[in-house]
Every structure is written in C-alpha cells, then in structure tokens.
C-alpha cells in the first residue's frame, strides 16, 4: 500500500534499530512517554519494543479519549438516553466502557435505551433528520482531532435548524494534560515517574500544530518529538529523542512532517474557536481535575448543548474498586501491576476503560501479549 507500507519496512526498521543501539548511551536509561493511545497501539501491534535496546522504554500516557473520560460523564450519557428518552449517538469505542456498577452503554441499550453507534458526526445529523420527533444527542469525546468534526456538525445543525439535535461535549485538550503530568507530584516530588521525553501526538498536531508544546518543552526541559503512527515513525522519533537528550537539547521537533506544520490547520482552529470555549476545569480519569483542559459549547450555540438542554442529576459515580486505570493513565503503574488485569478484567469483561479501547494500555498489553511473550520467552536477539 503506497505511502503506508514504506513506514513498515523491515529492512528500514532494522537500520533505525541499529542506529538507536549505536547512539543510546549504555550508561543511562531513556524513558519516553507516548502521550497518545495511537502510539501505544502501534508499539504493541508491531512489537516495536523488540527492536529497542533494554535501556530504552516506553511509558503509556493518557492520550486515549475513551480511557480518560470520567465515569460520571458516562453515567450522565446513560441518563440522557434513559431518563430523557433521547437517541444517544456514540462512537463504537465508547459502547463497552463500564460506568458505575458496571453499567455500560451497551448494557443500557440491551435494557431498552436507544443508543446508536455512529462512524461520524454526519451519521448523527442524519439520524436527527430522520427522527424529527425525537431528541438526538451526539456523545462527543476525543482530543483536538475529533473536535473540528463536532464543530462542523453543530454549525450544520444550526444552518438546517435541526432543533432536535444536540451535543454532549466532552472534548479535551492535549497540551494542558502534558503540562499537568509534568507538574504532578509523581514526576516532581515522588520520583515515581521518570520521563525523559515525549512522543507527541500526530493527528492532534495536524490540527493544532507543533507550537502549543513549546512552552512545556521549555519550562520542564523535556524534549518532544511529534511522531507519526506507523512503527517506523515511532522508531525514528525515538532516535530523535535520544539524540536531543544526548546533545542536551529539549526542543519540539517534528518527525511527522508529512502531516504536521508548526502552525497547524488554521481553518480548523478558527472553526473550533468559533463554536467552543475553554472550560475553567475538567475532570480526567487518572489525572483528576485539570485546569483549562477541555472545551464547552459557546453561548451562541447553546441550543445545541445537551448540558443546557437536559436536566442532568448529580450522582455518586464510582469506578470499580482496585481498578488501576488511574495510575496506569499517569504512567505510575503498568497494566500487569493491576491485580484485576487478565483475571477478572479482560477485553471480553472489561472492568476499566483502559481495557476497552484499542488505544488503552491494558487492551494493548492483553491483545498483543507483550507480557506473555516477555515472561514466557527468551528476549529476542538484537535485530541488527
């Protein structure tokens, strides 16, 4: 497949792997956080760790939209569908995430709620047009990548006067989350998390550009490399991070030049700015309350804001006790440190969000069996 298979080439992978082994200082370790679940998935799906020397390790960050959504927001979505009898449109990933008392959207659907899986916001608009006598709510989740399509849907609904359409907005922002992690006691005081640099998200950055990461790199002295999602992108970016560290630099570099510029997609940014405003604070699973880290719908579009449209009752939402998703999302623990992992919690019976999404660290560990190959088999010989 043109322009994709090139980034999965075995011989190129070998030579990048050889360069990393050559350049990585054997006297130290390199711990890199891949912020984005897409990278977590690529690392496990292609066995990238097998091509790294022992002193280069990846730590899995919170960049999985499904994983960081707090249980209360999911419970609220269930309430909108059940109590207000709305058609709730959601991306498929969200369906199986367990809410309070293990109640997921798929469970609520089985109990009679009208919950529909959609592939894009356009599907949700179509459902609104086809059901003029029903309330139709789009359950919007995701980072800066999925925000512009939601903005388009809201503007389109306004244009068409689709008065039965609204959006339950849970869009979150990447740069504040990175800053929050670097400021956290885990990193600053406790030393429980050692981060030497970040693999920056590629799709998010195609919208916001590479510029928004510059303050964090500067203030905290950590290099960031915007990395594409193919395995060779990840490997090349790892090499770029190692070089920055070896040279004492901490810059924002862009490996994903085929998709990302420093300024990003200005048109998309303007659209998002028009429709959304920054929330003062938002709760993230794992990270807790993070200032200025999420978006809400502007007053001018209040008619399409499900939070204003429906009365949503306060509730005591609760995650499964002893689920380690929060610590895993901060990079403090690994999936295998959780006592539920692989026993009661598997992709068939997920107890926490990290086991549901294909971008979640637990699902990646389980599905691609890193822990199984690693413990059960001798380490593969160096690829080069």
């Amino acid at each position, binding site marked *: *497949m043109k322009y*994709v*298979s090139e980034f*999965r*080439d*075995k011989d190129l*992978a*070998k030579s990048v792997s050889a360069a990393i082994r050559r350049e990585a200082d054997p006297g130290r370790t390199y711990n890199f956080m891949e912020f984005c679940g897409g990278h977590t998935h690529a690392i*496990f*799906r*292609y*066995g*990238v*760790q*097998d*091509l790294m020397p022992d002193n280069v390790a990846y730590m899995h960050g919170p960049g999985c939209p499904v994983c960081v959504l707090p249980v209360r927001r999911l419970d609220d979505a269930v309430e909108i569908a059940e109590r207000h009898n709305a058609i709730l449109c959601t991306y498929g990933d969200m369906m*199986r995430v367990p809410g309070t008392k293990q109640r997921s959207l798929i469970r609520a659907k089985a109990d009679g709620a009208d919950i529909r899986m*959609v*592939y894009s916001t356009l*599907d949700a608009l179509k459902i609104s047009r086809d059901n003029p006598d029903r309330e139709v709510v789009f359950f919007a989740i995701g980072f800066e990548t999925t925000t512009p399509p939601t903005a388009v849907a809201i503007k389109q609904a306004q244009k068409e006067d689709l008065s039965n359409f609204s959006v339950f907005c849970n869009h979150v922002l990447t740069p504040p989350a990175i800053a929050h992690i670097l400021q956290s006691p885990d990193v600053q005081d406790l030393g429980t998390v050692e981060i030497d640099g970040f693999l920056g998200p590629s799709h998010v950055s195609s919208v916001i550009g590479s510029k928004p990461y510059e303050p964090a790199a500067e203030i905290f002295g950590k290099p960031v490399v915007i990395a594409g999602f193919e*395995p*060779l992108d990840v*490997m090349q970016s790892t090499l770029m991070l190692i070089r920055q560290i070896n040279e004492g630099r901490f810059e924002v570099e862009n490996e994903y030049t085929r998709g990302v510029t420093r300024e990003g997609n200005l048109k998309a940014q303007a659209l998002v700015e028009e429709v959304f405003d920054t929330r003062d604070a938002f709760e993230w699973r794992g990270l807790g309350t993070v200032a200025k880290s999420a978006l809400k719908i502007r007053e001018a579009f209040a008619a399409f804001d499900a939070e204003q449209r429906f009365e949503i009752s306060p509730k005591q939402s609760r995650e499964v006790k002893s689920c380690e998703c929060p610590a895993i999302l901060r990079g403090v623990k690994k999936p295998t440190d959780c006592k539920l992992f692989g026993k009661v919690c*598997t*992709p*068939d019976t997920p107890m926490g969000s990290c086991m549901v999404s*294909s971008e979640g660290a637990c*699902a990646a560990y*389980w*599905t*691609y*069996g*890193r822990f*199984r*190959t690693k413990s*059960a088999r001798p380490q*593969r010989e160096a*690829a080069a």
Partner: protein
Amino acid sequence: MNIQDPKLSARTGSIDMAHGGGGRATAELITDLFQHHLNNPILNQGNDAALLPPAAGRLVMSTDGHVISPIFFPGGDIGSLAVHGTLNDVAMAGAKPLYLTAGFILEEGFPLADLEQIVISMARAAEAAGVPIVTGDTKVVEKGKGDGVFITTTGLGVVPDGVHVSAARAKPGQAILLSGSLGDHGVAILSRRENLEFETEIRSDSAALHTLVADMISAAPGIAVLRDPTRGGLAATLNEIARTAKVGIHLEENAIPVKPDVRAACELLGLDPLYVANEGKLVCFCEPGDADAVLSAIQAHPLGRDAALIGTVIEDDAHLVEMETEIGGVRVVDWLAGEQLPRIC
C-alpha cells in the same frame, strides 16, 4: 402436487403469512419457486423426507445458519453464501459433499422477486458444485420478527478412506498454508453497509472449496488439519486449533497475503485483516515434507493462486498464536474480543 393455476407473481408479489400457512399459497411457493429452480430427482420425490442411496464411506454432516446483512453483496448473496458456507464446512473434514438441505425463515413483506433471485443463486451454486439441494423447509414470520430472509443449510458428505482431518492432529513442526488473500468477504460486506458505504472493487471471495480440498488430498492424503477462516477470521481459526491441539503457532506477517484494496479499507476502518471474515479460503496444516506438494496443488487450483506458506506449528504450553510482525517484532495474535462486525455471514 400439481398446481394448475399458479398465482405467484415473482415480479410484484411479496411474502405474506399465507405463504407459511401450509395451504395452497405454501404449495405454490414450493412448486413454482423452490422446486422449479432447485429441480433435481431427489427433491422431486415430493415427500417430507428425501430418500438417499447408500453412501460409500464415513459420513460427515454440518449445519450453518445464514443471517447476513445486506443479503445481496459484491460477489454473492445470501443464497450462494448459504450453499458455499455449508459445502465448505463439510469439505473441511476432507470430505466430498453429497447433498444439501435448505431451511428458509421469511419475513412477511419480503419481495418475491428478491426471494427468486436468491433461490436462483442457490440453484446455480449447488449445480456448479455438483451437490443437489434434496429437501427443504419454509416458514414465514410476522413483519418485524425477522430481517427479510434467514437461510439454514445442512450438508452431508463422505470422507475418503485413509483421510483423517482434524484440529487435534496439529503437531509441532507442521507447516501452515493459507489458500489466498484475507479479508475480501468482510470488506465487501462492509462496503455495502448502511452508514459506511464506500467505493471498492473488492468482491466477496464466497466459493465452494471442496474441489480444491480434493486436489490437495490427492497431493498429500496425510493432511492433518483443514479449516475455513470465516467469522473471527484467521486469528479465531488458528486460536481454536492451537487450543484444541494444545500447540503454539508461529506466523510470519509478511507472508500473509492481503489485497491492497482490502488492506487500505482495513486501515481506514481500524480493522485487522487477521480478524476479518473469509468465505472462500482455507488454512491447511501438513507435515513439512508435504508442504511443497500441497502448496503446488493449491496454487494450481483457480481458487488458490495466491496461496502461501504462512507459518509453522510450535511447542507452547500457553497455546498462543504469535506472529513476527512486518517490521520484525513479535506480537501475540489473540482471540477477537467482542464482535468486530455483526452479521457478516
């Protein structure tokens, strides 16, 4: 039964409850539609049960329900699929299929023109395979209680002497062969799903594999395992075999054929071709010494031109399927969690 005055209008009519009532309308449907197109001496006996001649050898039998949506798709329809699916299940025992049966659940309001098209397609598939549909049944359910048409087929076949094909016979050291590219069926179906329609040249690979199996068995009668990787794809099939035979499996990702269009669609939709359904492919485990002969036999058959050696059976107490990835790392190929695509067959 001899209906003088057929009232069935395949052009304009649709199924109503009378067609399942057991009266004249039922009889008309059976004679004018099913019997007319599926025509063969055993079906034409016209009794409740088909009387079959004695069979020479061990019998195998398999049954399969088909609920696919959409019912017409690029490369086939629910009718041809119902014939191929069951023939293949019989063939995967190393058997020569002899007879098929067909049971139809029809929903009130289903267009007779569509039903006729499906029955013609079944008749063609059965004739091409040389396996007659010898008995059948029709039931009608009220509107809203079904989804157009569901078809269950059962197949009966005979296994040649000396052939013992079973998942339990997978042993470390054996070669694993795949008869062609993965994912064609699943992607063809997806391309026609509501909300997801996309332009592609990909057609379902739906095909009857028993002549291919016969060629393979004449090349190497000692073939250990045959399976068609349908629902759950190659990943599910290999995990089933590994669990049954208590072995491990090692795959080479770069050796597994996937068409560029299928790969592109999978990338776009976030699917892994290893988990996407096939309806005209098989995997074969054989002794390493037989691998060349079997591979040549597969490649010489029209349905196996893209066949490849994709891996080997290994010893592994955990019975895992592992794969060397495109870039040279290693991953586990696990069972599919949940459902990747509903109603794919």
